[in-house]
């Protein structure tokens, strides 16, 4: 198997593990938030942390959804116009996706470095930490798309 396919598969396994941990963490944090509030000692940090974890679910989960091809979408009209046309459309869409995530990766990385000076409201951690999930996920997306584009013909998805 090509190195790109291996990398794509390995990254997806890691992303799934992280999603599992984040999901469990959010449930526990919010349950604790309710318990502590009624025990008369509200947690100051739980809302902020869980919001940032939600951002991580969105972007990491997005990469897993792409890998599983379960993004919500319509069946393309290309399917009725012959295999050559279909391949051309697929290539075009892959290149567009690649450019889009390339731009996101570049600018969100710049934004993440710039945010190192800002600290979050309640935990006082650098905002770079929650922001970093966007460039990281964008790079994972790029690897998934590249792995798709270079995969042997029969393993390729539409």
């Amino acid at each position: 198997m090509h190195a790109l396919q291996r990398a794509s598969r390995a990254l997806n396994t890691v992303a799934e593990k992280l999603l599992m941990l984040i999901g469990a963490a959010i449930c526990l944090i919010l349950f604790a938030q309710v318990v502590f509030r009624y025990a008369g000692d509200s947690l100051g940090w739980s809302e902020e942390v869980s919001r940032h974890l939600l951002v991580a679910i969105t972007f990491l989960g997005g990469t897993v959804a792409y890998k599983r091809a379960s993004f919500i979408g319509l069946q393309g009209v290309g399917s009725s116009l012959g295999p050559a046309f279909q391949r051309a459309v697929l290539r075009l869409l892959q290149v567009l996706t690649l450019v889009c995530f390339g731009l996101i990766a570049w600018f969100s990385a710049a934004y993440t470095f710039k945010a190192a000076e800002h600290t979050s409201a309640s935990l006082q951690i650098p905002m770079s930490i929650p922001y970093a999930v966007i460039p990281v996920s964008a790079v994972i997306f790029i690897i998934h798309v590249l792995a798709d584009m270079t995969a042997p013909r029969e393993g390729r998805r539409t």
Partner: protein
Amino acid sequence: MIVVLLFAALFLLIALGLPIALSIGVPAIGLILTPGVFPPEVDWSGLGQTVAQLLFAGVDSFDLLAVPLFMLAGSIMERGGISQQLIDFSDSLVGWAPGGLACAVIVASMFFAGISGSAAADTAALGAVAIPAMVRQGYPPAFSAALVAAGGAIGVIIPPSIPMVIYGFLTNVSIAELFAGGLMVGLLFGLSFMAVAVWKSVRHGYGARRPFSLRFVLASLRAALWSLGAPVIVLGGILSGIVTVTEAAAVAVFYALVVAIWINRQLRWRDLPALLVESQVIAATILFIIAMAKVFTWLVAMQQTPVLVQNAITAMALPPWGLLLLVMVGLLIVGCVMETTAALILLVPVLAPLTIHMGIDPMHFGVLVVVNLAIGMLTPPVGICLFVSCGIAGITLGQIGRAVIPFVVAAIASLMVASYWSPIVTWLPALIYR
């Protein structure tokens, strides 16, 4: 001009088969970074970083946390064997009527709607049990699948409801009030679907009837008691103000775990990791659309489009009821061809400010928008409930598309009642919150 280009690219990319989140994001990000779209004095790399910031801000919300949590609670309950219990209990209540099992499936859908916030999840959970059972009783597969799909659509009308969470997030209307407003409308939908089921069953002689038995009611109630506790805890907690909507979703996850693992003994701990990943991924497909749409709607707003559309609509000088009718019919058409989350995010920022001209409460309008899009889940070509249900029943989209017509007609009639007889939406929230 730019907005026309933006929407043209959006629809072209969807038609070519690009996933919706990317069809929204690719043209928006591409156009923002195209030289000449913004004046040259605007810094290019600053624009790019604005995109990054919008992506983050689009989903950095405590309210939206309810989305993955309600997904998780719903899928734990689905795997925890509660569908059969709810159908048995509902059958004991209404199984004596003509079309008894069909009515029971609708009643069970209403109970399930009180646990889960997603129409697709409701359809999948009940369909797997209900469709084979109905076919065994002599209901045609297409009718059974259409009935389950219709019942599933109630899932987003009776709270909790993920589209209502998103609506509240977009407009700052209280999500708890939207939930309270949807409850009675959901009951109306259930009753109208039951009327269709009875009418069809009498006319074609579908199904079997069972005599009413109090002993059966009590026995099935005992079996279903813990499952029925879930909607009571979730809705009771939210409406009484003990917990916020997001907290209620977390509590629902723990309650569902207790029922599925210890009470019903249908779910094992080792099934849990896969379930967690699965529900986060489904939630992420919705959240990813929201993040990308934040960039899209930002660009649209920068071009002053919402104001232009609002001015054009107010210039038509329609009477309030006429404007409401126009918006409702427009949404029904959009709901047919567009996925729910995308439709919500692209349209609500434009439509919500028009409520003053419709002479309607913002909360009432929110409920109507969600109900409208729920009907969109029942109509081809893009109807998530139909997709799920015909997959389970093993029939084509064409077959279920014909069988669902009477249910869609009943749903539109109910929507008209909810649009023009406002107490059905506003009475309960007013009772609780004012």
